């Protein structure tokens, strides 16, 4: 499909012409090291985040394929697995220890290293200066440090895979005492320390990045770029950063206390413990394992929106661009993002309805949790109204943005079940939860991320991704996601607990064996298609069809006024001035009006 043929008025005046491509602003002379390794250019840092996130995405996905193999075929051995994985699959079977390590690492890396670092790190870095009209981040050096802390965290986390006792295996939430006691589980030894160190480095990275995003958005907008003229992606990334900056330190404090309990002899989370394996009563008394859960979920719930908000912002924008319509209810959308941000801090204890929480307190959290569905519903209805009477172009970005909306609806609605304590008391920690959060903050966030990658790839690399591969990627992933996760709701309704590696010994759950096999098979197909995306990505960087115009999608926002491949500093001359909001599509008979165009004397108001 021709992307450049898409916009109806290629002659529309933009700030720069193609021949200005070479006139980049050079801040300083760059070497290979300063340009590609320790780069301070926000665009390069964005690409570093993206590629590191992709590596993690593939690793995390591969882990899920491996443990789905165990879940689908618990009685079988796969000798070829041992050839590939060595001790991880001794005798062609994944042991309990390794299974739990895989599950834990899968959760950790996908939630934090891919959907937080990979998603926000990539698009906040890439888009904030470009869309608000800034040369770079407020502090390019801090920005660079943010990536290298992220990279360092990745190295530490990966290294835990290779130590003798293996990585941490107590689940991505790392609840103590399991995570606090080296003797509680084989995976709670050095792997757990490395996990904490990696997560601490990750938090530092998030804070460095987040502070930069906030200060850049607040201080470095170009002339005319009032907050109310910012694209929704900017609002989303801004509030994501606010969420991260206010909640990650709480998680970090939780981890530090955990480290003290592990090695400092403290009892913040420990009390009355007798370890059967060592026949030993531990000295700790008076601590509370629940305290950790409060600290963890104080970040853990906002984390859902740290993952989802950027996807929401990008989907809003991509839908508007490809529907050739203004986003419906811009102010309501901004208000919803704001409301979600506030409420995200007030709902953490809905993860703790079954910890013995005071029932009255539980009821308050039910109310607040379900309240968050209101701004979410507003967003969904606004997206639907945006595509009503539209003129939709099914670019790969648009496909993934629509897929995001579909998945967000499905996953969001099941959140209403789990947010209601009465139902949670039955569904908590079952496959219903797995299905819910994988659809809403796993797959849908991935769809937002894919939408972003397909949409901004031309700006990142000056080439297009292959469309046919993109369409295959979209349809197989969308259908696959529903085939994998929809049936899991039924397993949850049967009370089937998550994190079991074998259900064959359970009268209540063993009748799902065939379904588990089916889910595992689909999961492998979906994973193979992600490999195809990976191939498309790297192949297209070098061999993809070249972009030949500045604004291939016919978008209004500032990033499409830069040269095709902007250099460090983004605009070769003056930064363009902004005169209008970002959503003037199909107005007054014109396909789109860039933000840089002054409002005409006879222009209709919206």
């Amino acid at each position: 499909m021709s992307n450049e043929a898409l916009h109806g008025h290629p002659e529309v005046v933009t700030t720069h012409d193609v021949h200005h491509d070479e006139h980049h602003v050079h801040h300083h002379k760059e070497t290979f090291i300063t340009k590609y390794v320790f780069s301070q250019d926000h665009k390069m840092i964005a690409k570093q985040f993206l590629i590191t996130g992709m590596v993690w995405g593939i690793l995390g996905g591969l882990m899920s394929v491996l443990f789905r193999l165990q879940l689908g075929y618990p009685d079988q051995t796969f000798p070829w697995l041992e050839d590939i994985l060595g001790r991880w699959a001794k005798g062609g079977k994944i042991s309990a220890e390794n299974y739990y390590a895989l599950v834990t690492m899968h959760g950790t890396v996908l939630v934090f290293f891919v959907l937080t670092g990979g998603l926000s790190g990539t698009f906040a870095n890439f888009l904030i200066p470009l869309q608000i009209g800034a040369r770079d981040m407020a502090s390019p050096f801090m920005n660079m440090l943010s990536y290298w802390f992220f990279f360092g965290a990745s190295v530490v986390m990966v290294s835990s895979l290779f130590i003798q006792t293996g990585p941490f295996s107590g689940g991505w939430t790392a609840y103590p005492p399991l995570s606090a006691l080296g003797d509680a589980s084989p995976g709670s030894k050095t792997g757990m320390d490395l996990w904490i160190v990696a997560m601490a480095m990750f938090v530092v990275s998030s804070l460095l990045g987040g502070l930069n995003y906030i200060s850049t958005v607040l201080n470095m907008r170009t002339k005319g770029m009032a907050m109310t003229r910012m694209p929704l992606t900017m609002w989303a990334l801004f509030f994501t950063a606010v969420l991260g900056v206010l909640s990650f330190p709480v998680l970090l404090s939780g981890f530090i206390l955990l480290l003290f309990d592990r090695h400092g002899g403290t009892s913040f989370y420990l009390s009355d413990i007798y370890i059967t394996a060592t026949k030993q009563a531990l000295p700790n008394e008076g601590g509370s394992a629940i305290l950790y859960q409060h600290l963890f979920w104080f970040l853990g719930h906002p984390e859902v929106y740290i993952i989802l908000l950027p996807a929401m912002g990008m989907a809003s924008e991509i839908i508007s661009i490809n529907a050739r319509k203004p986003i419906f209810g811009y102010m309501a959308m901004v208000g919803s993002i704001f409301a979600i941000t506030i409420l995200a801090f007030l709902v953490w204890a809905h993860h703790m309805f079954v910890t013995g929480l005071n029932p009255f307190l539980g009821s308050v959290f039910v109310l607040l949790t379900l309240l968050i569905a209101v701004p979410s519903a507003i967003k969904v209805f606004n997206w639907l109204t945006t595509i009503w009477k539209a003129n939709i172009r099914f670019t790969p970005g648009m496909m993934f943005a629509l897929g995001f909306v579909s998945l967000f609806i499905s996953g969001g609605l099941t959140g209403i079940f789990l947010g209601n304590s009465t139902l949670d008391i039955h569904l908590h920690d079952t496959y219903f939860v797995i299905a819910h959060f994988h659809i809403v903050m796993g797959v849908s966030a991935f769809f937002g991320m894919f939408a972003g990658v397909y949409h901004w790839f031309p700006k990142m690399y000056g080439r297009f991704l292959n469309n046919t591969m993109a369409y295959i990627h979209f349809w197989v992933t969308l259908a696959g996601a529903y085939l994998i996760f929809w049936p899991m709701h039924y397993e949850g309704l049967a009370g089937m607990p998550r994190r079991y590696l074998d259900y064959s010994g359970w009268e209540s759950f063993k009748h799902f064996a065939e379904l588990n096999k089916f889910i595992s098979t689909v999961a492998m197909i979906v994973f193979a298609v992600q490999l195809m995306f990976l191939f498309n990505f790297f192949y297209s960087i070098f061999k993809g069809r070249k972009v030949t115009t500045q604004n291939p999608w016919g978008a209004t926002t500032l990033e499409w006024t830069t040269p095709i491949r902007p250099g460090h500093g983004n605009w070769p001359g003056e930064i363009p001035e902004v005169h209008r909001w970002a959503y003037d599509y199909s107005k007054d008979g014109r396909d789109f009006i860039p933000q840089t165009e002054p409002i005409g004397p006879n222009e209709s108001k919206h």
Partner: protein
Amino acid sequence: MTTTGILLLAILILGFLITFQIAKASEYVSVLKGEKKAFEQNNRINAFLMVVFLVLGLVGVWWCNKMLYPKTLMPYPAASEHGKNIDTMLMITIAITGIVFVITQVLLFWFAFKYQHSEKRTAFYYPHNNKLEVLWTTVPAIALCVLVGFGLFYWFRMTGDAPENAMQVEITGKQFGWIYRYPGKDNTFGKKYYRNIDEATGNQLGLLWTDTTIIKKDRDNNPVGEAKLKADPAGFDDLVDNTAMYLVKGVPVKLIINSRDVIHDVGLPHFRLKMDAVPGTPTTMWFTPQYTTEEMKKITNNPKFEYEISCDQMCGNGHYSMRGVIKVVTPEEFILWKAKMKPAYAIAFPAPEAAKPAADSTGAAAGVKDTLKTVASSHK
């Protein structure tokens, strides 16, 4: 690498090559056809697939429900009164969210199909409509109020205090099994202290059977103090068992939930309940079993049926095998079972103290009988 491995790898590579060739070819075809034409064709195909996906998806949802609903717990009545409330709440929520799900998904995919790109049409410039926005702020808010209202009504019913004469059972999680404790004749649990746990003597819970002085030690095994503990006679007749939890049909039970090591979770899928077992912080929940195990075998048409206790909180490598069993029996069966049980104290100290606990044991049965009578009359 084994033959299967090589074969799988070959299939994967072949699949990639074919897809890649198709993808490249389609790019050349678009160039030959003209980019505009290729775009229009792709747009039509994808718009069509949107509506195909919608139809197949909705059929799939119906089919999935048909296939899997019988495998859930929903076709059978909940085994507790609380469970019945939860099932009602579940149905209300499914109805409300189901309507929203179908409407929104139909609109999404139908609009995508209907408003696909056409040269003849210009998109409708429609940036906002305050009335509409107020409408879809208030309608979801009202729907959620209904859900919150019903939810909290049931929630407070379930989490209220257990009836005063409810039977009490203590359940303690450990890696990787459950320990059940019942009070004896005195209907009171004896005190316990975790440092007193001694599996060698059968004291799995650290019950205070004798006056003891426990030397407290730090992590390096250095003494840091001592705890003087007085024996608690209330624990002499406590029954401790690892095999199954016995409950009585129609008699409310209050579970006192503990953990000996890490966090576990008492998952009771048939009763639709669960509660964490947290070391150092006991939790409770109560419910009234509605059907005996034997009755449930008939209801579910499964002669192997058991009420199972799952551990729903990640607790270590053996987590998946931490299976417990609940036997819901008639009052008479319960009395018989309890009469056969020996208090843990009597097992640990068979002579000469055995005589006293043995008598207690019989007395315990009588005590239970009294309790059950009281409970039955208060629940009429």
